[in-house]
C-alpha cells in the first residue's frame, strides 16, 4: 500500500501547509510514517501558534448567537480557522453552529479538520448531516477526507454513508486511503456482501491499475474478511484472475498474496490452482523464491495441496534447488527443539502453529523430492515428532 499511503500523506500534509500536493513531490523519498508524524507534529505546532488568540475568540463567541457565528464563520473566518476552532469549542455548541452552515462549507472544513482534535464534535454530528457532507466529498472525489473520518464515526453513521454513496469506485478508493488496518476491517464489515461482489467485479473489469491497489487492500484485511473477499474474487472469470496473478508477479506481491489465497475456501483455492497461467515459465520459481525470501511458507504450502501433480513436482524441484538448509527455513522447528517458542498462557505461539500449516503441503511434495533431500526432511521431522 506504500504508493497510496505516500500519496495520501502528501495530500494531507499539503493541505495543512496550504500548498498543492505537487509541491511536495520532492518528499518522495520520505516514508509515509514519517510524513504522518510530521503532519501531526506540525498540526499541533500551528494550533499552538494561534491558540491564545483562538481561545479568546472561542470565549468571545459565547456572547454571540449561533446563527451569526455560522454566518461569520462561513463568510469571513473560512474553513481553515473553523476547522481549528471546532476543536476548542464545546462540542454541542460547535454542532449547533455547524447545523446552520452549508453542506459544501462543512465539506471544506472536513478536509482541513484534524479528527483527533474534534472527535467529540464529529461524534455528535447528526448522521443525516454527515451523510450529506460525505456525498459532497464523494462527488469531489476527496477520498482522503472520507477515509480520515472512518475511525471517528459510529458504525451506524458509516453504514448510512456507505449506503448513501452509490459509487462503488468511491467506496473502494476511500478504502485505499484508510489509515489503519482496524478501520479497514470495520469498513469491510459494514459493506453488504452483494456490494463487495460488485466492487471486486469493478476491480476485475478495470484491470492492472486497480488490481495493484485492491491487492494491497485485500492483503491488509483480517483473515475472516480475506476469506470472504478471496472467495468473491475467485468467482471472477479467468482473464480477471490471470490479471490478478500477473499484477501480483509484476509487483512482487507473492509474500502478501499467498496467505490471501491460503485463507480462501478450498473451492476458491482449487480454482486458482487450476489456472493454466500458473504454468507460465518461471512463475512457480518466482513464487517459491518469494516464499523463501519473505518466510511465506505458511502461505504457499497449504495451497500446494490443491495443485495438480505436475505443478507440485515443479514446486518440489524449486524447493530442492534452494539447497541444503531449506527445511530449517520452511519448518521453524529448531527453536522448538532447542526449547525456545514454548507454549504461552495465551495459546500456541506462531512457531508452534506454523508446522501444522505447512506439514500437509510438505508431505504432498515430499514424494517428488530426491532421496537425499527427502532424507534431510525426514531427519528434521524425526527429531521433532517424538515430542
Amino acid at each position, binding site marked *: 500500500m506504500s504508493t497510496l499511503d505516500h500519496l495520501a500523506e502528501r495530500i494531507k500534509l499539503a493541505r495543512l501547509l496550504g500548498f498543492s500536493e505537487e509541491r511536495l513531490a520532492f518528499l518522495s523519498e520520505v516514508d509515509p510514517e514519517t510524513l504522518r508524524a510530521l503532519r501531526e507534529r506540525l498540526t499541533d505546532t500551528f494550533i499552538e501558534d494561534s491558540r491564545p488568540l483562538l481561545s479568546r475568540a472561542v470565549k468571545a463567541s459565547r456572547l454571540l448567537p449561533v446563527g451569526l457565528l455560522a454566518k*461569520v464563520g462561513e463568510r469571513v473566518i473560512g474553513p481553515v*480557522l473553523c476547522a481549528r476552532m471546532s476543536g476548542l469549542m464545546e462540542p454541542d455548541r460547535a454542532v449547533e453552529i455547524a447545523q446552520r452552515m452549508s453542506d459544501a462549507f462543512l465539506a471544506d472544513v472536513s478536509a482541513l479538520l484534524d479528527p483527533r482534535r474534534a472527535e467529540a464534535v464529529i461524534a455528535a454530528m447528526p448522521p443525516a448531516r454527515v451523510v450529506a457532507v460525505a456525498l459532497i466529498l464523494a462527488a469531489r472525489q476527496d477520498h482522503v477526507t472520507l477515509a480520515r473520518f472512518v475511525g471517528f464515526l459510529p458504525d451506524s453513521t458509516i453504514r448510512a454513508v456507505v449506503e448513501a454513496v452509490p459509487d462503488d469506485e468511491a467506496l473502494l478508493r476511500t478504502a485505499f486511503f484508510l489509515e489503519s488496518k482496524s478501520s479497514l476491517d470495520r469498513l469491510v464489515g459494514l459493506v453488504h456482501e452483494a456490494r463487495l461482489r460488485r466492487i471486486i467485479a469493478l476491480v476485475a473489469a478495470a484491470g492492472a491499475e486497480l488490481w495493484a491497489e485492491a491487492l494491497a487492500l485485500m492483503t491488509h484485511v483480517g483473515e475472516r474478511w480475506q476469506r470472504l473477499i478471496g472467495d468473491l474474487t475467485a468467482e471472477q472469470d479467468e482473464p480477471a484472475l490471470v490479471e490478478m496473478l500477473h499484477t501480483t508477479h509484476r509487483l512482487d506481491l507473492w509474500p502478501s498474496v499467498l496467505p490471501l489465497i491460503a485463507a480462501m475456501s478450498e473451492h476458491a483455492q482449487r480454482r486458482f490452482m487450476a489456472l493454466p497461467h500458473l504454468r507460465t515459465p518461471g512463475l512457480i520459481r518466482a513464487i517459491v523464491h518469494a516464499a523463501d525470501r519473505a518466510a511465506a511458507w505458511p502461505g504457499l504450502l497449504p495451497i500446494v495441496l490443491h495443485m495438480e501433480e505436475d505443478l507440485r513436482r515443479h514446486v518440489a524441484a524449486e524447493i530442492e534447488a534452494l539447497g541444503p538448509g531449506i527445511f530449517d527455513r520452511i519448518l521453524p522447528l529448531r527453536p522448538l527443539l532447542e526449547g525456545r517458542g514454548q507454549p504461552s498462557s495465551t495459546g500456541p505461539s506462531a512457531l508452534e502453529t506454523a508446522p501444522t500449516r505447512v506439514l500437509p503441503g510438505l508431505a504432498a511434495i515430499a514424494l517428488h523430492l530426491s532421496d537425499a533431500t527427502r532424507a534431510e526432511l525426514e531427519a528434521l521431522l524425526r527429531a521433532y515428532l517424538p515430542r
Partner: protein
Amino acid sequence: MSQPPSDALAAALGPRPEPALAPLDRLSPEVRAELSRLVADARERQRREVKQAIDASLDHVPALLRGTIRKLLF
C-alpha cells in the same frame, strides 16, 4: 555524532521531536532546506491569516457588542 539541524523545520518540530521524526534529520541538505522553507512560509501565513480573519469578523459583530468582543480578543 552530527548536530541536529537548526532551521525553521527544527523550530516547528520543537525541542523534543518524537523518534518517528528522526528520518527528517537524515534528509539531503537540499530537501531539508525546501521542506523547511515551505513550513516556515505556511507557519507565517497561517499566523497572519488567523489575525486577519479575527479582525475581519469583528466587522460583522453587532455594534453594541463590538467593544466588549474586542476587549476579550485583544
